[in-house]
């Protein structure tokens, strides 16, 4: 990895986030490291409970404490460790330089304020604009995300809008201060496929236009394949594979990544229940408080070896910029 300081925007180093629960300590994020360049679109894919949302929230330090705590590692934004900032300094980063789009556009907007009010609040707080200017800016943002007649819609309450519209409002709000990084946590999951296509197109367009960096978090491999440039695959709090989107889909290295891809019924060709059985991944996702010894995927892995059950594998760089956490590639 060769990076000049200008390119490197965000770097997460050995991040550890633990949740202290009655059932034990859940290592929700376990030794996660990655970097992001300016204007890059990075995908994070994994199943529920794999730590992808906790990882994103940790970057903005939005982990509820108790029960959660960032116990180790560093998050460097433009060279500055965010974990060393005071809460007041952190507030200047949140929503201003790094912002977030949440999964549920229904519950992430305040139902008793108009959308105009909610977006202008962000602008006034961070940019110090007065009410009138902030509202103008807000209308401009709504127009940019493709909401028809924005002068009228700023006076609407969230319940007067459809799911797709609300997600557009969320995007407008996240973009309002022209942040350098947007963390998009399942931005299209709650939406119908035809609306999902609209929202993903919008995110792609805006990302190009504004040269913002986007972290796209999703469980949908299809969304990843069509949207991002580089991918992290997460399983039980760890990054198990990291590669460019072409390398990942053309030659997945981790048995988990490979298994996931093969378990999805294909839309192309003649595959159906009469021609072939789906290739399933056996077993279930383990409980984070009681992870198996060694590699956490070992109980479900078709190519498990003795060493896998004893010791967790480190990250191997198999090809340039293609990393995998698996003993098979040592």
């Amino acid at each position, binding site marked *: 990895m060769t990076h000049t300081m200008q390119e490197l925007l965000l770097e997460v180093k050995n991040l550890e986030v633990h949740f202290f629960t009655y059932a034990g300590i859940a290592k929700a994020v376990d030794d996660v490291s990655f970097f992001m360049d300016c204007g890059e679109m990075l995908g994070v894919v994994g*199943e*529920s409970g794999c730590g992808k949302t906790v990882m994103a929230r940790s970057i903005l330090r939005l982990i509820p404490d108790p029960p959660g705590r960032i116990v180790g590692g560093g998050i460097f934004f433009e060279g500055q460790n965010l974990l060393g900032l005071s809460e007041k300094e952190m507030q200047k980063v949140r929503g201003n330089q790094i912002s977030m789009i949440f999964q549920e556009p229904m519950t992430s907007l305040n139902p008793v304020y108009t959308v105009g009010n909610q977006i202008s609040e962000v602008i006034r707080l961070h940019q110090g604009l007065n009410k009138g200017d902030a509202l103008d800016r807000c209308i401009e943002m709504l127009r940019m995300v493709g909401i028809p007649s924005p002068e009228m819609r700023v006076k609407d309450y969230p319940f007067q809008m*459809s799911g*797709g*519209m609300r997600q557009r409002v969320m995007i407008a709000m996240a973009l309002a201060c022209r942040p350098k990084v947007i963390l998009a946590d399942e931005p299209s999951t709650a939406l*119908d*496929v*035809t*609306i*999902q*296509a*609209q929202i*993903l*197109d919008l995110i792609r367009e805006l990302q190009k236009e504004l040269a913002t960096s986007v972290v796209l978090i999703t*469980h*949908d*491999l*299809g*969304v*990843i*394949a*069509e*949207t991002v440039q580089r991918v992290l695959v997460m399983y039980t709090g760890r990054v198990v594979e990291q590669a460019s*989107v*072409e390398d990942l*889909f*053309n030659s997945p290295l981790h048995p*988990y990544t490979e*298994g*996931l*891809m093969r*378990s*999805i*019924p*294909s*839309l*192309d060709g*003649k*595959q*159906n*229940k009469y021609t072939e*059985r*789906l*290739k*399933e*991944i*056996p077993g*279930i*996702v383990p409980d984070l408080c009681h992870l198996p010894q060694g590699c956490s995927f070992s109980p*479900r892995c078709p190519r498990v070896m003795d060493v896998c059950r004893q010791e967790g594998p480190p990250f191997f760089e198999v090809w340039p910029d293609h990393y995998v956490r698996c003993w098979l590639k040592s």
Partner: protein
Amino acid sequence: MILNTSILKVAHLKKYFLIKGEGLFGRRKDIYAVDGVSFTIDKQETLGLVGESGCGKTTVGRCLLQLIEPTSGEIFFEGMNIVGMSRDKMRDLRREMQIIFQDPYGCLTPRMRLSALLMEPLEVHSIGTRSERKDRVAYILERVGLRPEHMQRYPHEFSGGQRQRISIARALMVNPKLIIADEPVSALDVSIRAQILNLLVELQQEFYLAYLLISHDLSVVKYMCDRIAVMYLGKIVEMAHRDEIYENYQHPYTEALLSAIPVPAVRERRGRIVLKGDVPSPINPPLGCRFHPRCSYRVEQCDQIEPELKDLGDGHFVACHLR
């Protein structure tokens, strides 16, 4: 050999929900949830019902079991019209027709152990003696991939995938002929979905089941179904054999739906058709063809005349003025 191979025949099924209008004295309004749907399901066949949220696919499923009463229309199960049937008769009939719900967390009573959950359908329908029931429970339990030591556990002790196995086991207990599966894998993790889909296929072959598979996931439907019906705003817009739907679709909505699915493979981007606007409200569906406000091929008559479901031959039906 068998004269009539269809197990279920639905004709002109309609379900309108009444809602209160705006204001204190607002006029009551109808939601046209299902508005004239007809289809058949053959023995041991899987029919897929696809569409976006709010298109009425779940309502169709519930009407079939009379869990909600249809406004009008006819539903023939093995030649017998079940609309307006008495409660007692309907209960007997539910031995033949079972449903699997989407949410495996919400549909199991949290205070019943697995053994009681599985025994319940047999008790409700007074099937078998005590020991026969126990045998049946043990047999089905093994068939859906659960172990005998699970019998004394409560639902919260199971994972999502296991709970869906329990729901499937409960549906199978009474040896039905038709199972309505309403989004059976949508709530499950990606790595678990294939397990449940494979299980449904195995059980279909073993117990000679017919399925109505309700789903919004076109890749799941393609894998599982023999025939597929595409719904939009309470109506079937296209219905055909699986391969016909994916390779020779005729309705602009089917085309848009197929092109909107993100495919998990890196390759040249297809010319994606991104539909403009939202799905209109079923309270005030558009005049003429319900898809016309979002359709890029619309012609003059589309906003005036509602297209009929036309037979293009070989069981391919489409409701579009262009065909």
